[in-house]
């Protein structure tokens, strides 16, 4: 929707193309961000379409073909400690890893934004109740908190999702509250209130649009942390359970083979590294693209 309109009077060119198309334009011009975006899109697409890529069965092992090195015929990336095809397991593993790596941040983004916007807009006692409750969670390091909640709930994908979501709600709430309190103090909110609009209408029309992008950018910076935490939970055996392919779990099971074939054992770690690096760089790129003051 890049509308560049030239008004007839005085020949003044006015680009009122809107905020988001400007952000998109700046993103496209940033090569690092575009490369990261491409890698992430490829990873996500390959994970989604894994069954149609003609890969080997990620669950079918072979006692003879165990720990084949990278480049073995028929097994491009070798096989793991049970003789399962590594390429297939890495690509199928992306499904679960990306899901439990991204989903908690998405959930926490919605819950944290709602809590933070309510706290920031209402202020006073409501703010105190929400923010002091949130502060309790800051007393624990996020890794410890994730492990503690997961451990208490028991292993499993849903429990991992729940524990990671709980870990990420407090920081997002805090950012949302800070941004909302800032916007709340501006005159246009007062003007909207003076027009007799109800709090929900003011929030919907005037607050959300102005606070969501900083919260969103902050949330994207959390995705790489979440990926690593999710993989860490699986590595510790309180996340995804074997034999499901998942990068953190694969890292764990291949750890005993690190002296036999270090490159092979490092592959799941490499996937986690590349993905979280790309997520981080992408979020940095998005942040700087959004940061331009008009």
């Amino acid at each position, binding site marked *: 929707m890049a509308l560049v309109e030239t008004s007839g009077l005085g020949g003044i060119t006015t680009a*009122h193309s809107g905020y988001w198309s400007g952000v998109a334009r700046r993103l496209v011009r940033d090569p690092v961000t575009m490369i990261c975006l491409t890698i992430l899109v490829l990873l996500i697409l390959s994970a989604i379409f894994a069954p149609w890529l003609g890969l080997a069965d990620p669950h079918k092992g072979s006692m003879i073909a165990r720990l084949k090195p990278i480049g073995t015929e028929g097994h491009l990336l070798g096989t793991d400690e049970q003789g399962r095809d590594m390429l297939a397991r890495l690509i199928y593993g992306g499904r679960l890893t990306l899901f439990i790596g991204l989903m908690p941040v998405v959930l926490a983004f919605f819950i944290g934004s709602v809590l933070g916007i309510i706290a920031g807009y209402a202020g006073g006692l409501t703010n105190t109740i929400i923010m002091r409750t949130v502060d309790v969670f800051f007393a624990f390091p996020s890794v410890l908190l994730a492990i503690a909640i997961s451990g208490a709930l028991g292993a499993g994908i849903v429990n991992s999702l729940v524990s990671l979501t709980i870990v990420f709600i407090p920081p997002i709430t805090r950012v949302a509250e800070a941004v909302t309190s800032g916007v709340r103090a501006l005159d246009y909110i007062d*003007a909207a209130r003076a027009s007799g609009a109800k709090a929900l209408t003011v929030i919907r029309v005037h607050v959300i649009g102005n606070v969501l992008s900083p919260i969103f950018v902050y949330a994207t910076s959390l995705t790489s942390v979440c990926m690593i935490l999710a993989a860490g939970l699986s590595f510790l055996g309180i996340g995804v359970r074997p034999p499901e392919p998942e990068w953190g779990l694969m890292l764990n099971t291949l750890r005993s083979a690190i002296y036999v074939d270090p490159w092979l054992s490092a592959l799941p770690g490499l996937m986690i590294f590349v993905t979280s690096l790309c997520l981080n760089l992408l979020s940095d790129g998005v942040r700087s693209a959004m940061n331009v003051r008009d």
Partner: protein
Amino acid sequence: MSATETVTLPGSLADKGGPAQALLIVKDLRKYFPVRGGIFGRRQAMVQAVDGVSFSVEKGETLGIVGESGCGKSTTARLLIGLTEKDAGEIIFDGQGLGGELSPRELRRGVQMVFQDSYASLNPRLTIEDSIAFGARVQGLDDPVGRAHRLMARVGLDPTRFAQRYPHELSGGQRQRINIARALAMSPRLVILDEAVSALDKSVEAQVLNLLVDLRGEFGLTYIFISHDLNVVRYISDRILVMYLGEVVEVGPVDAIWSAQAHPYTRSLFSAMPSMDPDNRTKTPPLSGDPPNPIDPPEGCRFHTRCRFADSVCKTRAPKLLEMPQTPGHLAACHLHDPASGHPKAGTEVMG
């Protein structure tokens, strides 16, 4: 659509009290802000932002409110429009008391406000059209968009060019016109202009002032015009109200105050105005120091700490707002004008 087309403000609240009824009467308005501190956020002190302010605004007149920063001008404005809850006092709009016959929602139809910061008072993510139409939509007035377009044309911004633009594409003067249009879109009868032209360039300020004068005549509006610029206040106001530390110290017709300021504080405000004559410059500052802390205002007359004429009575007894004998409608709160006050110089022309 031409800019000269007559626009009416449909949907205005009907006149209830007739022309003799003051549009707004404020009685003993009071607002203290708590200062919290300590471990449990206990109330430590009270900022006496507005303390017993009373005044009235007639239909069709413009009341200018002047005073130093922090004297309670803006708090008074926010109390009148309901953005801040009042602690005590009465607000009577066209004969109807707020909280009684008049609901806060109805008051918001009748009173609108234009803020000082023209940029911060427009949502950067909304188009001009949406910003103006928002209030009308909320209030369920018919044809909010058409209303917005007509008002844009009236304040001198062609709707075909500006309706879909965003605030950051406009200049300060254009944005302030939009803010005026937004206030008018609610069809108010009273518009509070809180330093509405203070942040503008002098030339743009003059344009906006003229626009305000035109709109006042055209729509039969009543203004409360808050400013620290006495010249601007004189230009637009019928009466002036002077505030000091949350209290009214002087109120009266603009010409009466201009020719003879009755309160020493008003006097010093006027002598602080830059002179147009280079041979007649003010050499000594008319008023020294900052106003006292409103958390703990001085006993007696609040101005006595900075007043040249302060006497012992000023430190103990607060003066009442009394009418000047020679000019009806001109009131001042100073012991100098009250022969019964016990001030040794009361009744004499000490200020010259």
